[in-house]
């Protein structure tokens, strides 16, 4: 029931890998059973008996036929494995991209994920939304993988194998999830102190839900007088150096875009649930949730933290 089980594929790349893995596992299991049986047989049959006569056994130096056989057969096994593997490499790495493909750019940061939908004009962070793909009329999502700093890796096991995000070396991957739901994963290439909490959440939605989400994400932040004080603190402390809120002066890109912060289930790239207590604690001191994260504690007093939290909680 693990949500990250590689043997529970829900998308074509993961499916192809799963099929290949069964073949490889079967061949390996057969070899294992054969050799272990031989080993056990040797150890039992040829052990020195208590009533041994003390003479050395017949010395056999080799056998050309036997050695040829046990070279040729492994070579044939390798050929079979190789051909099966080559086929899957080709189908996964060089797929046909129908015109209905959704384009996403994922940019890895220390220690969060930036997502841009260039065609749909959406910028968000940490929680990726994609439409479900019907195998009859596929709507896959193609993800361009870039990095703003060190190496990362995008790994959502049920959807695809992992592909690295390497600065100055654009990569890409694709998924076409067959069922709606939430798919989990995390960064799989050591990227620094908080590599462990750079979690992945992929929300696969029906086409209608996805379109609605896109529409909502496109809106700028709605102004509100109730939290004007909080907004003022946010905009005059260093928050806006790192964070952006569309429709306001905040346009920092070092940290996640916060325009629709409250549309997310988690904060800090999945490290904490997005509720009042954790949001407030994160703003007060990120070290208490994710020590080594690059967001500093801004040393705000309690009143200001309350105000800023209230402001952020209006960013739906």
């Amino acid at each position, binding site marked *: 029931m693990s*949500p990250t089980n590689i043997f529970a594929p829900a998308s074509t790349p993961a499916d192809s890998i799963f099929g*290949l893995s069964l073949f490889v596992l079967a061949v390996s299991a057969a070899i294992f059973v054969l050799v272990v049986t031989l080993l056990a047989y040797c150890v039992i049959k040829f052990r020195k008996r208590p009533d041994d006569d003390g003479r050395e056994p017949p010395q*056999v130096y*080799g*056998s050309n036929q036997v050695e040829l056989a046990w070279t040729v057969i492994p070579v044939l096994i390798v050929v079979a494995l190789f051909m099966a593997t080559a086929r899957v490499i080709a189908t996964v790495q060089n797929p046909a991209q129908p015109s209905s493909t959704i384009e996403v750019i994922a940019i890895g940061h220390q220690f969060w994920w930036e997502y841009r939908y260039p065609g749909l004009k959406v910028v968000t962070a940490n929680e990726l939304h994609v439409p479900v793909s019907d195998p009859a009329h596929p709507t896959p999502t193609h993800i361009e993988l870039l990095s703003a700093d060190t190496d990362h890796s995008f790994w959502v096991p049920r959807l695809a194998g992992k592909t*690295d995000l390497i600065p100055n070396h654009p990569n890409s991957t694709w998924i076409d999830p067959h069922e709606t739901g939430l798919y989990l994963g995390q960064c799989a*290439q*050591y990227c620094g102190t908080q590599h462990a909490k750079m979690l992945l959440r992929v929300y696969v939605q029906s086409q209608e839900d996805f379109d609605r989400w896109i529409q909502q994400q496109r809106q700028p932040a709605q102004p509100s007088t109730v939290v004007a004080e909080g907004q003022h603190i946010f905009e005059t402390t260093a928050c806006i150096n790192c964070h952006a809120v569309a429709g306001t002066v905040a346009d920092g890109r070092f940290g996640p875009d916060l325009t629709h912060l409250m549309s997310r289930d988690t904060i800090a790239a999945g490290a904490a649930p997005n509720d009042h207590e954790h949001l407030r604690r994160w703003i007060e001191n990120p070290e208490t949730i994710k*020590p*080594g994260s690059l967001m500093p504690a801004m040393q705000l007093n309690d009143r200001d933290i309350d105000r800023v939290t209230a402001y952020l909680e209006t960013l739906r």
Partner: protein
Amino acid sequence: MSTDSIAWPGSESHSRAFVDQLHEWIATVDHKRLGIMYIVYALVFLVIGGVEAMVMRIQLIRPHNDFVSPQVFNRMFTLHGTTMIFFVAMPIVFGFGNYLLPLMIGARDMAFPRLNAFSFWLSAFGGFLLYFSVLGANGLYGAGNAPDVGWFAYAPLTSLAFSPGHSTDYWTLSLLVSGFGSIGTAINIVATILCMRCPGMTLGKMPLLAWMNLVMGGMVLLAVSPLTAAQIMLMIDRYLGGHFFDTQAGGSAVIWMHFFWIFGHPEVYILIIPAFAFISEIIPVFSRKAMFGYPIMVAATISIGFLAMSVWAHHMFTVGMSSNANTFFVLSTMAISVPTGIKIFNWLATMWGGKILFKTPMLFAIGFLFQFLIAGLTGIMLASAPFDWQLGNSYFVVAHFHYVIVGGILFALFGAFYYWYPKMSGKMCSETLGRWHFWLFLIGFHLTFDFMHIPGLLGMPRRIYTYEPGRGWDSWNLIVTVGVVFQSLGVLVFVYNLLWSYFRGEIAGSDPWDAWTLEWSTSSPPPAYNFVAIPAVLSRRPLWDLKHPDDPDWKYE
């Protein structure tokens, strides 16, 4: 110049002042003493590396544990990997090679004794430098401690921008220095084997251990240089304004990976081939039969040496190489499984029809066979690139390589310890303690490393200081940690055995195992000059010929 046998405390020459004895060891150029120093050095670091592993396993025993901070954890896995590969496995392989090679080929010492000593002290200094980082890495930035960039130190994490202070520099320099030591020893090994064999010992008549060390030495010469080059480039990036790996300025992170793995993959073969050598000496003696298929074993080893240089990018299947490149490396990696795998068949065929004695060295050799088989099969799974896109960089890989290094190499090493300890010390190890060691360690090994595959299959990446509950990883991590207890007990019993046997073990005599290679023809321990007279040989098993004059090997080889 002493012409005595090795001065062991407690032996007849204990009347010499301790300072003199210490000086003899520090200034020695004798291959046997240097071999022992390499081995003791490696054992000390084995314990240190083991403690680092224990810290990590305690931290991972349950999700969201807070035994250590992420910063400390990241230093732990960096130090653990670096220590185990460079300051345990390499020195111990060089140590056994140094000790055994001249004895097994009928020589009085290695080809270049002073280079030998220099190489040892360089390697030793490297280890000291790595650990000095804890004190010394705190530079101007006030940042820096032991390195925390992982043992393969990927760029650009190692650039000044992402690793300020000097921790990365300690990693770089300690390996740079010990790398020169490795090259020195490799030169010595190759020259000794090629030039100093006793009369009659053609290349086709030397023990398999000599062939395997020859191939290993050649590989060291080829593999260490790219690492050294990359480390120099990294230092240039960090301090001289270079941008080789500086991606912000157009440099390439992938190029570091290529340089590192062109070293890194042959490196693991450099470690396993001597393990094959130990197994190839132990299994024949304890099955009472000649090695089956000596020529093919030689050919397979040489082809592994060449093929190992062509597989490196199977560590890079996820970095976005083209499908053609990925396919090539799948082919080369699967190809190398053939010469490696058939060795298992040769060892089994050696046991077949024999009279197997289950002394401690053989127990470890049988464990090796079983575990190396499994490690090879998980290697085949990883060689299949799409499967690696799931399994790579996960705990499945961690389980795989520990299966090779601990289940394979360390088991073979334990076998080698029990087999050659009588030769080095003159005393037999306790069989009872040996059995306790074997069973405790076997249970611990399998608890830890069998079950470690499962979190990998369930999506757990490596190098994470903690993990989320609810992903199905919790119980497996608990079992994995429990295994560490048994392994530690096993190692404690082992160390106790070595010490106890030195003082209380049975006198071994020159040939306690009724074996067939030249090292068993001289006393235990050997005199400084190894042999009273340089032997002449007619076959691969000179002592078999002496013991069976009516049925000597040279009639059949």
